[in-house]
């Protein structure tokens, strides 16, 4: 009986580990983008989506080489 409980708990734990290790699937309105690792304190993974707002107007009166900036509101 004890062995059955132990094995069941072990299988459940392994399943949780695999689920975590598989990362996070990023989805957008255009469909699935892919599986990425979560943002951590020291790494922003490929696939991270950020929402922001333009700090200045940009128009067809701009020229090649003009710089612009976007204030990041939040990673999505």
């Amino acid at each position: 009986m004890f062995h059955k409980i132990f094995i069941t708990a072990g299988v459940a734990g392994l399943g949780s580990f695999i689920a975590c290790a598989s990362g996070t699937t990023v989805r957008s309105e255009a469909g699935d983008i892919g599986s990425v690792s979560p943002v951590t304190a020291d790494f922003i993974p490929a696939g991270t989506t950020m929402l922001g707002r333009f700090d200045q107007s940009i128009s067809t009166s701009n020229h090649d080489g003009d710089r612009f900036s976007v204030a990041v509101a939040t990673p999505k």
Partner: protein
Amino acid sequence: MAIPAGAALTGVVTGVHSAKVPGDRNVIRLNVNALHMNDRAYPFSGNISGVRVENASGASNKTIRNTVIGGAVGTALGAIATGGEAAGLITGGLLGAGAGAIISLGNGSNEPATIPAGSSVTIQATQGIPIR
């Protein structure tokens, strides 16, 4: 959280075409190349995947992300031209070769050819960024 409040992305205009005649397209290409946070700048590789163009009156706002509907990308404010559509703009001579997302700003003088300050934008990193 690795991306704190106050973080900013910066980039450069890499192409502009202003409509010369009615029906011609207004397009602009923007390349985001740096992430600024914690008083440091990090090289950034990514794509603009959506722009919500909000004009002064709040009218005619449209958000289209990586979608070309019936080849009519030129008439959709904020639409991102990709694939064959983007290639067509380059081979058609509207833009030279270059990096960045091509954003439609409407046709001719019927639509505003401006992304006003405060317009929202969605940007996706294509390469991981180690934070030192």
